[in-house]
């Protein structure tokens, strides 16, 4: 009843091709954005900002990037974290070496640098596919991290290979509290998600999907696979690069190349699988799930520990966390292989008829 599009007629092409065609969706989206921009900053505690909300948003951005590559263009990648590292270190160097550069421009520069690196490592995708390509992206993962660790120039010759992100200052306003950082990250993520949504609905996105579904067939109908694939690598790496820069500047503050290890890449991959491959919404749901799960498990173990006096050693707890994490991922894949985004779609279908299903 509440969620039914009956009576909403489209009278123009613009209305017909709107991103959110249904009024209820528009209201819902506006509400979510309003909550995210106004209510949350007023209500949340600094812990909530810095431990959950900020990493969640940043990793959604990275997952969005990987989703463009893996979900839309069908190129499996295990190197997302490496491109994040490129973005972070490039931004750091831009701010360090070009005096007076606006931070946002440095972020974009970091993203572009990541895109360039992404194109280089995307070149093999023209010849290899599937798991072979996944291993090729592992090469990117290990090589880039090694490069950042070994070449002193990238870390400004810091002996321990650690960079400390500069303050974020835009037009005289310093973003130094968790709240302001959250708002900055949120704004960037919303804008980039909007751009991604538009890209995937447009010509480019259709090309990607055609290449994903069958690249030979796509070539036959006049899509240039090379251009489509490399574009996917570039855009995806750009998103990852910006996410990496934000990860360093707004979340960690002090980073070493090892922060962007294979583990992070795999986590981002999990996000898109659990959230739903080939959906924008999935990136957000997945990252929320993956970020919150370990924290929730930790709290659960602590709670059980206190109430039952099990005296679980911390090492056992962390291993238990690992087990539950792995187990849940398997469980999810078995129960809902299309991810959380699919669940939301099913809910929408149900809601259309609710509460009178017949």
């Amino acid at each position, binding site marked *: 009843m509440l969620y039914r599009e009956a009576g909403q007629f489209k009278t123009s092409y613009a209305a017909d091709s709107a991103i959110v065609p249904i009024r209820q969706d528009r209201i819902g989206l506006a509400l979510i954005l309003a909550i995210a921009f106004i209510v949350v900053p007023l209500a949340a505690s600094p812990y909530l900002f810095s431990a959950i909300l900020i990493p969640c948003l940043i990793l959604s951005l990275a997952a969005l990037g990987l989703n463009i590559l893996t979900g839309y263009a069908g190129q499996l990648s295990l190197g997302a974290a490496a491109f994040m590292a490129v973005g972070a270190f490039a931004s750091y160097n831009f701010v360090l070496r070009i005096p007076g550069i606006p931070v946002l421009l440095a972020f974009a520069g970091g993203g572009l640098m990541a895109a360039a690196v992404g194109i280089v490592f995307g070149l093999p995708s023209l010849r290899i596919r*599937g798991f*072979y390509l996944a291993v090729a992206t592992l090469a990117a993962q*290990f090589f880039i991290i090694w490069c950042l660790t070994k070449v002193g120039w990238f870390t400004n010759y810091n002996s321990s290979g650690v960079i400390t992100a500069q303050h974020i200052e835009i037009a005289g306003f310093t973003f130094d509290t968790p709240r302001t950082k959250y708002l900055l990250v949120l704004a960037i993520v919303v804008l980039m998600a909007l751009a991604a949504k538009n890209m995937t609905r447009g010509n480019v996105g259709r090309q990607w999907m055609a290449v994903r579904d069958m690249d030979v067939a796509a070539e036959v109908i006049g899509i240039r696979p090379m251009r489509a694939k490399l574009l996917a690598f570039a855009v995806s790496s750009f998103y990852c690069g910006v996410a990496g820069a934000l990860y360093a500047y707004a979340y960690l503050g002090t980073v070493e190349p090892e922060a962007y290890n294979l583990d992070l890449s795999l986590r981002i991959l999990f996000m898109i699988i659990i959230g739903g491959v080939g959906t924008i919404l999935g990136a957000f749901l997945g990252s929320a799930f993956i970020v919150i799960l370990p924290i929730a498990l930790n709290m659960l173990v602590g709670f059980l520990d206190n109430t039952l006096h099990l005296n679980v050693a911390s090492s056992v707890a962390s291993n238990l966390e690992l087990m539950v994490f792995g187990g*849940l991922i398997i469980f999810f*894949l078995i129960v809902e292989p299309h991810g959380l985004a699919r669940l939301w779609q099913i809910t929408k279908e149900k809601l259309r008829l609710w509460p009178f299903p017949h």
Partner: protein
Amino acid sequence: MYSLVALGFVLIYKASGVFNFAQGSLVFFAALTFVGLLEHGFNFWLALPATLVVMIVLGLAIERVVLRPLVNQPQISLFMATIGLSFFLEGLAQILWGANVRGLDLGLQDEPLQSIADATGINVSKFDLVAAAIAAALVVSLALFFSHTRIGRALRAVADDHQAALAVGIPLQQIWAIVWAVAGFVALVTGLLWGARNGVQFALTFVALKALPVLILGGFESVPGAIVGGLIIGASEKLAEVYLGPFVGGGIEGWFPYVLALLFLLVRPEGLFGEKIIRRV
């Protein structure tokens, strides 16, 4: 030595089309179980079959719990499932046996054999020889198993086409169970050898990652490919470390195999011995 890990991958890939990311964790689990049993007072010859039983049971359980519900899912889902599995196994192994680094003594010295060194000027340890011999024996027996037994042929049929194999009456689930059990066995052998060399520790799981370039060098479907690939990767990474390493600050062992494999793939996308992929629309 890399060949051994790669073999576990190839085995599963050949028979079920699943790219088994958890092989490294299986290796880790096997080695840890073995050492754990030794510490609990089992002697060597009792611990070996006990671990073998554990690994086979584990393999069967994986097939039943994880893979069977995922039949007919896209490959990427299966791949992700094995990553989840590897997290699970790593956690389980460390809860059961603790996370300490342990030594594992197989009673073989890892020192250069004097007789060979005198004769040829090359340092080869008894350990290396035994490891090579075990790897060779394993490979030969697996090759025979694949080509000359009923089960082996059924395995290859399943690998080619699940549905066709089912249609001619091959019990798919039994075959998969066997494959996973054998993979568990290979993991055990690998775990023992690597564990004896480097100590049984968490880093064993990374060995599996090193097996990936071995795999793509050799081709996913090929057992001889896994061996040749293992040799190439093992030798080249050490050579690169020794000869190129000093120029760029060392530590290139970590990524060199991947880049090598990557360059190789540009020339031959299906690996050395992989099956030529013919794509039709």
